[in-house]
């Protein structure tokens, strides 16, 4: 029995060999070679096939002859399609909403058409692990840092006029599905004073928020259980949630229509020159200047070095890998070179639940002081629920698997105590996404690194990158093209605070 099987296998493999040889013979045939081949009982007579397909054979021969002549686009050397260009002005590493926003604004602000050649490098065109598309998509102005409030306000302005900014002629108008439902923050006694301070900062910066007492909250939203709530802060305008994929595609479509080159590949290395200088104290400092970026093609060993003038790090959760390639973080311990980029991926879970008697069309994005949040999704009684875990219980970031036990233990009890209707709910689905978590102070890093002369950072937003992306894109484009911030002053979010060890923490209640 086994001998028959072995013969069968041999016949099959030789069949395979024969067919490939047959293909090569078809190639060489037109030059008049009729090589002999061993006929190993495949059951296909060779000569009959040739005469039957005479027409097709002659046509193929004519095509190959015309290709070989000069003037055709065929060449014997196989050129990989989709390689990035050999030279570019600005390479943006990271094709999420932040990267494409920067690309769009760079093209918007260039003063001459075709002034800057921008290449956006994204390693995963399916965006399976990107933070942009896996986010809950909310935007709020209820921050405590004025810079964050201004960024959110500017981004909301952008999204209000999105068709004016990102509309392409002859294409459909962009529909962000922006639900104007506002955010509702609940505060307990210990943190009520922080909320009041934040409220005055927010109103001073121009956000439309209002403070509510527990009775007012109960009146507006009778489904909330106001035990333990002393104060609530409610956004009236410019707050809500929207579809991040639409925004990403809108930026991408407009940027490509303005001439940005999209490349699918991974940045694996940099070629840089080092300039050693001594400070006033006599310490030696390495100043690096990036000369070219090595972009590796997906699933292949092929790479293309892209010579560039400026590199923008918008890689989100994976930004620290890029700076590690440049040696930041590996210098002497007490110098600037020894401080690595404090951005790391943190996994966050989002659960979709269905509750038929839940809050209706007016339910805001509710954030409780225990850290649990939920928002309405669609019109069918579905809600998106989540919670930021404690520092000690951060889940493992090597994959995007969802831990349903976390929902049972940590999320559901708090949610049910705050909104009693949610005691009866059913988890429909869940997903996990990465935060580009800034371990230093959980706020974005925008600006240049002092040791790398031509790398700009726009990363580390720890969960509010999406809502700030239009305004941050504009600011980074201003930094690159105008040399300084012109519309919003974000120098407080630069590198200086990390190197001087002065965290700008959000005095949030969560």
């Amino acid at each position: 029995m086994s001998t028959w099987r072995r013969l069968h296998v041999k016949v099959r493999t030789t069949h395979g060999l024969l067919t490939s040889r047959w293909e090569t013979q078809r190639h060489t045939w037109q030059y008049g070679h009729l090589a002999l081949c061993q006929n190993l009982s495949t059951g296909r007579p060779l000569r009959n096939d040739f005469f039957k397909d005479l027409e097709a054979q002659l046509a193929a021969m004519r095509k190959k002859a015309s290709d070989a002549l000069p003037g055709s686009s065929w060449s014997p050397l196989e050129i990989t399609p989709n390689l990035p260009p050999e030279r570019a002005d600005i390479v943006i590493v990271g094709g999420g909403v932040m990267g494409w926003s920067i690309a769009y604004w760079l093209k918007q602000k260039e003063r001459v058409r075709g002034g800057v050649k921008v290449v956006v490098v994204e390693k995963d065109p399916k965006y399976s692990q990107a933070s942009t598309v896996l986010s809950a998509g909310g935007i709020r102005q209820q921050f405590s840092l004025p810079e964050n409030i201004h960024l959110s306000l500017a981004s909301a302005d952008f999204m209000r006029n999105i068709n004016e900014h990102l509309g392409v002629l002859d294409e459909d108008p962009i529909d962000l599905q922006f639900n104007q439902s506002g955010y509702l923050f609940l505060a307990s006694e210990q943190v009520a004073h922080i909320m009041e301070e934040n409220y005055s900062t927010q109103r001073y910066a121009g956000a439309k928020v209002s403070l509510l007492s527990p009775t007012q909250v109960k009146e507006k939203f009778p489904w909330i259980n106001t035990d333990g709530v002393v104060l609530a802060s409610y956004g009236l305008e410019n707050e809500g949630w929207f579809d991040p994929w639409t925004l990403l595609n809108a930026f991408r479509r407009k940027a490509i229509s303005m001439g940005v080159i999209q490349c699918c590949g991974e940045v694996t290395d940099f070629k840089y020159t080092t300039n050693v200088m001594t400070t006033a104290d006599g310490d030696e400092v390495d100043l690096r200047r990036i000369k070219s970026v090595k972009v590796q093609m997906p699933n292949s060993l092929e790479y293309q070095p892209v010579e560039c003038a400026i590199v923008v790090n918008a890689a989100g959760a994976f930004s620290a890998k890029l700076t590690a390639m440049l040696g930041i973080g590996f210098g002497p311990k007490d110098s600037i070179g020894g401080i690595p980029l404090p951005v790391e991926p943190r996994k966050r879970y989002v659960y979709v639940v269905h509750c038929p008697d839940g809050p209706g069309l007016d339910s805001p994005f509710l954030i409780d002081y225990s850290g649990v949040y939920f928002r309405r999704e669609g019109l069918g009684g579905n809600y998106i629920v989540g919670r930021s875990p404690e520092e000690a219980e951060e889940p493992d970031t090597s994959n995007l698997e969802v831990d349903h036990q976390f929902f049972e233990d940590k999320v559901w009890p708090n949610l049910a105590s705050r909104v009693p209707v949610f005691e009866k709910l059913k988890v429909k689905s869940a997903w996990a996404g990465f935060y580009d978590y800034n371990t230093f102070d959980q706020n974005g890093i925008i600006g240049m690194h002092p040791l790398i002369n031509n790398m700009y950072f726009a990363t580390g937003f720890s969960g509010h990158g999406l809502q700030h992306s239009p305004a941050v894109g504009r600011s980074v484009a201003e930094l690159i093209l105008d040399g300084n911030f012109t519309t919003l002053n974000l120098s407080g979010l630069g590198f200086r605070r990390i190197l001087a060890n002065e965290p700008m923490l959000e005095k949030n209640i969560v």
Partner: protein
Amino acid sequence: QSLQRCCQRSALLIVARRQWSSSSVSSPPLHTRLLLFLTQRFYDVEMLLSWGSQLRRRGIQKKNVYYGYTQKLYGSDIAAAYYILSLKGGFRYVGQPEWFRANQRGKFNWDFLKHKDTPLEEVNMSYTVINYTGLGNLEGQKSLRTLSLRGCPEVDDWFLARLHIFQDSLEELDISHCPRITTAGLAALRNLKGLRRLDVSSLPGISSPGLVVILLEEMLPQCQITATGYDHSLRQEKGERMEEHMEGQR
């Protein structure tokens, strides 16, 4: 997408060349020749169209600009009144029975200047180009009771969100026939707790009107909602039943 356009262009060029290279003497009619002429100048036409849309947008923005000068000279109520009249809307003062309106040509009576510092009670901006920035002119009106925005092409979800400035006083709102309002924007009406009559008829932007009206009624319990002009027929359900039948047979 630009590739598509290129293909269309080249196809049209081939058609053109074929027509002209044929030996038949009669040249194609004038409109065909004009269209072929335009297709050969594709990028110019694209530039002209984008200029046209930009000019239109700038015209609307100019109409909705903030009337700061009028406000400094005459006060915010007169400024709001002047703004409404210049957009060809109509309004009524608190305590005054007559309406002030602009006619078709845009001419209006300057008598409204007589009533200084009287707030507006009812405003009718139907079929005008009022938008989000224009609403800033009406911001100080604390006793506005009726607002009618029937058929306004620039009223969208953000406009509805800004209506929270009238949350204490507004009792009647009419946003029927506005093409840019979607379901997501109707959630913004949650702030208007004093609303008694709401008209959301014939909004082409909302997808499941029956469900949305029910949710709105739940959200605003004291409000009477009018929602006509929707097709609540069961035609879609019939298609679904046929599909179920097929699957059952399989």
